[in-house]
Structure formats: structure tokens, C-alpha cells
């Protein structure tokens, strides 16, 4: 098996490009998300993205806030109790970002259909409502009949809809633990990460912890993302910050509100990026930015016990550095 460890800079350089169809592998808005990867995309100046997110998150909020997103497909664009996604909504209302709406269930099924390489998925939702009638891709057609066209059940003659399936160029998927080959364990709900890992042409894992493959052999039923479909593994503890990673850390409530507030205007977004996105060049600096006090606070999570069975297999930073050097040159 191939050691697939890459630095976050390498992974973004190798697996993202302007104009790509990008998928941020997240749980739900406040949950696990490959946010550090999105920040690195901002640092490397990616633009004109077509983003497909099952659900919003601070990652898509940030990418849209800096003007990197031309188009987005989404089931839910907000940040739940943390409010509407200010940066994303600014991009949408200004006309910068075209937004195509579906239900959350529809997005899940569209990933499933993409993983199957199906031409379409039967639609029993997002029909007979404005998700069907309104299309950002065909704004002059209302009611639109091209976004979710009608199909007929050949067994009963009843009418249903048909969803386009999703096959993103790349998905950056946050996982709790991965081995260096790309086998991964997620704690907490998967949301659509299982289907997304199969639907995407390339997959980059962003892992809070790197574990020995022995951990996978002890818990093979937990390994829902497999090396067979993974192209690169990035080790990045607290990769979902300021969102949560069950078993490891809670969401940073204060920073969630603050970050979203800063996304409201272009100027504040730039100020935020200067301080929180571009102001670090290593994981050590990233951690220093968050600060020891904050790290300690969010790490005292009521879900910590979920990690207990796996701790003995966690690889140390030194080990990982060595393994990472092996993939160079």
C-alpha cells in the first residue's frame, strides 16, 4: 500500500484548481468539516469554484466571502444556531455566487447517485415546490422544467422527478482518524461523507489524527472510507476548528459568531483572513493562533470518551513527520 501523507500546502496545490467542482466533506454546519483545507485554498488564491456542499459550514462561508465561489449547490446554507452564513449570503444576494437549492435529503441522494454513476436519481422531494420551479442556472425559466425534470414510474405510471447526480472533481473530507494509506474512521454522524468519498473523482482526507493500520484491522467495520478511493491524506489536528469534531473537540462558540460576523463585509473578511487564514505557515503557528487556552477549553468535550478505544494507535507528531518526509522526492 502507498503512503499518501501530504502537507496541506502540497495537497491543495496538487488537488485543487481554479474553476474546479469542489466538495467540502463535512458533517453538518456545526460539525466536522475540512475547514483548514478551505483556508489553504484561500491562501493559494483559488477562484471560480463550483462548490457542491450537502450542507453549509464555515468553509463555504469563507470561500464565498472572499469571492472564490461562482456557483454553489446546497441543501442548507446556514450555520444553524450560529445564524445565517453571512459571507455566503452576501455573495448570493450580490449576484456573485449562483446558488442552486435542493433539500438535504436530495443532496444525499444525489451523492449516492454519483457514487453509483447513475444517470439520475428518482426524486420524491424537491418537486412540486420552488426547488423544482426555480433554477439559478436557468433564471429566466419559471417554472423551470430542466433542473428536476419529470419521470414516470414504469410500474404504476405515476409521475416523479429526477435529480442530476453529483460527481465532483475533488472532495476534501474531514475524518477523525486516518492511516497513512487513506483508510479512515469517522466518529459522529457521517452525514454524506461515505457516499461522497465514492462519488468524487479524487479524495483528499483531512484527518485530526493519524493512527496505525492495526487500528483499522481491529475495527474494520468502522472504516467507512477506504484507501482504495483515497488519493491523499493530510494530517491536521483541529482541522475542523472553529467547528467541532466528535470525540476530540467542541465547536468554538465565540469564534463561530466572530468569524461569521467578520464575513459580513468585504473589508472585515479581508481583515479576518489576514489574521486567521494567512497568518500561519505551519501547524504549530495555526495552533498558536487558536491559543492554548482555547484549545484546552474546546478539547474538554463530553464526547472525549468516544476516542478512548483508539488512543493507543495514535501516531506521534514525530512519527508522522518522518512518514511525511518519505513521500517527498
Amino acid at each position, binding site marked *: 500500500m502507498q503512503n499518501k501523507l501530504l502537507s496541506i500546502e502540497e495537497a491543495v496545490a496538487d488537488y485543487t484548481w481554479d474553476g474546479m467542482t469542489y466538495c467540502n466533506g463535512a458533517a453538518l454546519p456545526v460539525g466536522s468539516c475540512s475547514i483548514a483545507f478551505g483556508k489553504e485554498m484561500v491562501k493559494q488564491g483559488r477562484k471560480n469554484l463550483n462548490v457542491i456542499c450537502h450542507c453549509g459550514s464555515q468553509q463555504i462561508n469563507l470561500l464565498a466571502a472572499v469571492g472564490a465561489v461562482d456557483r454553489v449547490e446546497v441543501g442548507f446554507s446556514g450555520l444553524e444556531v450560529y445564524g445565517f452564513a453571512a459571507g455566503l449570503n452576501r455573495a448570493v444576494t450580490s449576484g456573485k455566487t449562483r446558488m442552486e437549492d435542493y433539500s438535504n435529503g436530495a443532496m444525499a441522494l444525489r451523492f449516492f447517485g454519483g457514487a453509483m454513476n447513475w444517470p439520475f436519481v428518482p426524486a420524491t422531494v424537491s418537486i412540486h415546490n420552488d426547488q423544482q420551479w426555480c433554477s439559478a442556472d436557468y433564471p429566466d425559466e*419559471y417554472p423551470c422544467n430542466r433542473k428536476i425534470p419529470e419521470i414516470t414510474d414504469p410500474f404504476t405510471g*405515476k409521475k416523479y422527478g429526477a435529480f442530476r447526480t453529483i460527481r465532483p472533481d475533488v472532495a476534501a473530507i474531514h475524518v477523525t482518524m486516518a492511516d497513512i494509506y487513506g483508510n479512515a474512521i469517522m466518529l459522529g454522524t457521517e452525514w454524506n461523507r461515505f457516499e461522497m468519498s465514492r462519488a468524487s473523482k479524487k479524495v483528499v482526507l483531512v484527518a485530526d489524527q493519524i493512527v496505525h493500520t492495526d487500528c483499522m484491522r481491529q475495527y474494520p467495520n468502522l472504516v467507512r472510507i477506504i484507501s482504495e478511493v483515497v488519493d491523499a491524506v493530510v494530517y491536521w489536528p483541529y482541522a475542523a476548528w472553529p467547528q467541532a469534531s466528535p470525540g476530540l473537540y467542541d465547536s468554538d462558540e465565540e469564534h463561530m459568531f466572530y468569524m461569521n460576523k467578520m464575513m459580513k463585509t468585504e473589508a472585515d473578511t479581508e481583515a479576518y483572513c489576514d489574521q486567521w487564514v494567512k497568518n500561519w505557515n505551519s501547524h504549530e503557528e495555526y495552533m498558536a493562533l487558536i491559543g492554548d487556552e482555547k484549545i484546552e477549553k474546546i478539547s474538554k468535550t463530553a464526547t472525549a470518551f468516544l476516542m478512548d478505544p483508539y488512543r493507543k494507535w495514535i501516531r506521534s507528531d514525530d512519527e508522522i513527520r518522518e512518514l511525511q518526509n518519505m513521500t517527498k522526492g
Partner: protein
Amino acid sequence: MDYTKQEFMAIITGREIKDGELIILGVGLPMLAGYFARSNHAPNLRPFTEGGVYGSSPVGGLPWGIECNRISANATSFTNAIDALGFLVLSGRADNAVIGAAQVDKYGNINTTGIWDEPPWKVGKYLPPRVRLNGSGGASDISVGCKSYLIMASHEKRRFMEKVDYISSVGFLTGGDSREKCGFVGGGPAAIISTLGILRPDPQTKEFYLEAYFPFTTIEEVKACTDWDLKISQDVKAVHEPTIEELKKLRAVDVTGSLRKED
């Protein structure tokens, strides 16, 4: 008695939830209503979230999100969206749900997507909204799949509209049998619990009428806060105040008091 309108709403909504139901709950007031019901009168309630969190209760306060660690600390199962929204909701298996609404119309159709100066249905074009909201999320799935569901909304004239800007989640569409014709597996909204009262759909026309109002308001105020010509039940009555016991149980769920602040 000392309680907020939101707490009142949560208790009234909770009273609508029956023991044993398989119920999908979103964050905020819906979760509060559901877990209040479970501790008050529905000990065998089976709540789950759209990410596939099963068997859990909030820890340390109301969750910030469906996936929040506060709801993930004592789950018996974590699955995924296909399972929760697909196998359990879109399939027609789930009994009940509680969803919110930025705008709701006389037939219980909900808008949570955006606010337009000129809505798409009026201009025949889909242009960017003046205000972008959140999109439908799982509410749209609930609206077509759950056997029945409850809508919670703030009772204001700009929210209780003759016709919403955008239908994110279907209610009874244009009333009568218009929903039935669509062939959805779910039965549609059972009630709208607002900050002022309880609205039910007429069995024939499917238009929502006022069944009961809260003690701190009047029928006139409710009518004034409704954009359509709200019909009033012949048996309309004031809803009983929450009991001390109910409030105590509610606050045991909302331990951080996030919904004790007046909005």
C-alpha cells in the same frame, strides 16, 4: 408566571407530541419541544436528527447544531443522512417532526429560502433574493415524508402571508386536494404553533384557521398579525398557561437558558 413566548411555544408544541412517536427534530425550539415532551408525557418518544443521531439526549444545554457534541455524547447510533432523511423520513416511516418557518402561508407552505422584493412566482424569473435565508435543509424532506409534522413560526404579518415568496417546504399547496394530487407519502402539517396561538388546517379546504390563542394575546391581535383573512374556530379558546411542572421540565432541557431570553 415568568416565561418567554418562545418557552410557551415550545411547551404548546411539546403537548402536540405523542408518546412512542418516531420524531425528527431540528436544532433550537424543535429540539426543546421534543425533549420537553419526552420528559413530560412521552417517555417512549424516539427522537432522531437528520444526520442520523439516535437514542441521545442533549448534554450541557441545547445543541448548536444537529451534529453538535451536545447531542453526540450519549447516542446509541450514528449513521448518515441517507438513513435519517431517506430511509426514515422520505420513506414515510417517521411519525412526526417539528420545523420552523421564516414565512408560512394560509395553506401551510413554508419559505426558509429567501426574501424577494419581487418573488419568482410574481415575475416569472428566479433572481437573487434581497435576503438569503438558509434554504430548506431537511424540512423539505420532512414536509413530503413524515406522517405528520408541526410548524413553529413567529406570528407577524410579514411572516403569516397570503402567499409565501418561495415554497421551500410544501404544505397543502393551493389547498383542497392539490397536495393529494402530488402523491407525497406524508400527510402534511398538522398544526402551526405560533408565538400567539395554534392554527389547524380545515379538513376540506386545508386553509389554516385559529383554533386557540395564548393567554397574553387576543383574537384581534392574532388577526392583525396575519396577512390573510384568518378564520376563527367556532370553539376557539385561550390556551392554558404552562404549569410550573411543565416549565421546570422545559428548563431542565434548556439548561443554559438560551430560550429564556425574549427575542
